[in-house]
């Protein structure tokens, strides 16, 4: 058994299976939460019959339906690009999942540059979106894809700059290290200096959250899809399981980006008053409950706000968020040196 666990390939296979299994589960859970919460906010019941109770199997049924659909590819489409784009979008999500720490040592791969990796890999999805928009041979798709690209450039910067404050405070780029740096609040020996970074880095958290919404292309930044303007944006020509890929990626991405945000700002898998040995198995529960709060807020935004215009989004990013994030970094750095 020991020897088996030391084998690199066995461990790799196990990790791949865990990630591949967790992504759809997380996506389905978030998707179901979206269906039910939106219904609650709009005086509706939402899915009710599928699965017998609360319509819990609604998204499974939808998924099966999508698999049965004809896989349509427009005649003028750039076929290889069109086919590969959904995979690339999902790839970005899966790869992001790898560095999320679910508990002490409960991490697929703890990288020293974890946060750097996470921010870099999360942009890959946008390339997929741009590919989808370009290859569909549809004007609405093209506009949607280009909007997504413009949005990425505008929002990757505040996203990165907002995390710099956290990195400065934690002194490490490893996500597990960042959680450790936040641990220690109200421990038995009293104040130990650590606290969730949302308290000292409130500005950073808000900027990160707004930028993450834009990165997820969720309302109020859902211009790349914008049903009322662009029909379905870059998704217009997709159907069947390729559409399902985008769908799953969107919801799984909500989960993983919320997990990154929870890790960076809300203490990740760590919670006060919980001893380390309990944290081993309670860690995932704590992290997922924090993620649930963030996911709820994202869904809440979606069903409350209308969408911005593309130029208003750029104004918000370049004239407001980026200067604020830079000021936040300077302030953090000065405080770090002084204290």
């Amino acid at each position, binding site marked *: 058994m020991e020897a088996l666990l030391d084998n690199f390939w066995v461990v790799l296979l196990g990790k791949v299976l865990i990630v591949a299994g967790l992504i759809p589960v997380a996506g389905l859970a978030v998707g179901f939460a979206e269906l039910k919460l*939106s219904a609650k*906010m*709009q*005086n*509706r019941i939402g899915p009710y019959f599928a699965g017998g109770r609360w319509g819990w199997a609604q998204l499974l049924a939808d998924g099966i339906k999508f698999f049965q659909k004809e896989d349509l590819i427009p005649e003028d489409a750039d076929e290889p690009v069109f086919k590969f784009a959904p995979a690339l979008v999902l790839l970005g999500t899966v790869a992001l999942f790898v560095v999320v720490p679910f508990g002490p040592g409960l991490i697929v791969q703890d990288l020293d540059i974890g946060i750097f990796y996470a921010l870099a890999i999360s942009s890959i999805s946008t390339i997929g979106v741009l590919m989808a928009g370009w290859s569909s041979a549809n*004007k*609405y798709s093209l*506009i949607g894809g280009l909007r997504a690209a413009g949005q990425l450039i505008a929002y990757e910067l505040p996203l990165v700059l907002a995390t710099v404050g956290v990195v400065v405070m934690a002194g490490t780029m490893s996500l597990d290290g960042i959680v450790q740096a936040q641990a220690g609040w109200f421990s038995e020996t009293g104040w130990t200096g650590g606290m969730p970074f949302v308290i000292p880095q409130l500005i950073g958290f808000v900027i990160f959250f707004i930028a993450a919404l834009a990165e997820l292309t969720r*309302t*109020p930044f*859902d*211009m790349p899809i*914008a*049903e*009322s*303007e*662009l*029909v379905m944006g870059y998704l217009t020509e997709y159907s069947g399981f390729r559409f399902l890929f985008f769908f799953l990626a969107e919801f799984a991405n909500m989960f993983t980006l919320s997990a990154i945000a929870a890790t960076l700002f809300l203490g990740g898998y760590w919670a006060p008053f919980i001893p380390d040995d309990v944290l081993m198995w309670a860690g995932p529960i704590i992290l997922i409950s924090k993620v649930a709060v963030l996911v709820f807020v994202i869904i809440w935004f979606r*069903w*409350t*706000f*209308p*969408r*911005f*215009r*593309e*130029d*208003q989004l750029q104004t918000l990013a370049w004239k407001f968020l980026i200067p604020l994030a830079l000021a936040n970094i300077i302030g953090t750095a000065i405080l770090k040196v002084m204290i």
Partner: protein
Amino acid sequence: MTITTDPDVIRHLSEVSVSVEIETADMTLNIGPQHPSTHGVLRLVAKVDGERAYDVQPVIGYMHRGYEKLAEVRTYPQVTALVNRIDWVSGFANEVPFMVAAERLMEIEAPERAQYIRLILSEMARISSHLVFMASYPLELGAATPLFFALRERERVLDLIESVTGGRFHPNFNRIGGVKPAAGSGSTQRKVVQDLPKGFLSETRTAMDEVLHAADQLEDLVAGNEIILARTKRIGVLPPEMAAAYGVSGPNLRASGVRYDIRKTDDYLPYDKFDFEVPVGENGDCWDRWYVRLAEIRESAKIIQQAVDGIPSGPLQAKVPKLIKVPAGETYVAAENPKGEMGYYLVSDGGQGPYRLKIRSASFSNISFLPWILEGALVPDIIAIMGSLDFVLGDVDR
């Protein structure tokens, strides 16, 4: 790598220049006829440079049903069924001006109670039409939730219309010289004819309170939202002179600051007996068009409450011959419909049906300035401006 000293080569190299001109072709974007926010089958041919449209041409006619011609080969009672399909979200209000036109030519007048019922139902049609706008406009800006709040209240109003007329959209309830007895009311055995269903007046009173409450809710939900304000304020400004020049009417005209309301200037229904305001906007932008409609919902609810309190008793139908023939002559009757001025130019040659019926529908004029107002607009603004005009394609194409 060798260094050349040949002067010819050096001179040649110094003169070489690279000239690359990227050709950017403008894109023609077909918005519609099948598009989520063209309210049916309007088609816009937009020439766009990036996201900015420099030339937008609306193409109409996909919904043309030839009502003006159809009316010429129908009898007067049959035309009622046609005209309430012109603007289907406010079906009842379309019937009234046609009936009034025929009545004026016949020199009869509907009894007062019938006029009150017409007025109550017309105002209900206005509320339900404006609530559809309240539902769809935030949706076009990307907010899905106000839809459900508005449509819930609209259902309440439609239920009331249905309880009287038997139809939610196409009441077909007016008769020349009055209105018909309510659907399902009374008993055929006892030969009792009842005009309004039991409890209608009290139910209407409570429903109007609910509508006023919902108007407050909608104002909270939409008007308190910074993004909505950023998307609608100073977007699609329609100056009053321009509005008058294009024949814009209804809330779109009043949003531009022109206090013109046919309910105040004409007597096609006894509006002069009620106390109500004519809300006007200041800037004529998308936001004002939204706000004027919200204010009109409130005013309509107040009118209905007053009418319910003061509805007289009496007959429903004036004395008309069994075979309705309208004396030769012509007249034009316009009404203040939810979408604007709805007018019928009725020419009669003394026969059983109209000789010619010209329908002046509000939406047609209200979208006629689209090429002017959409010039230079961004694609998201095209949708925002188009949505704020609140047109119905049946009303445009007839």
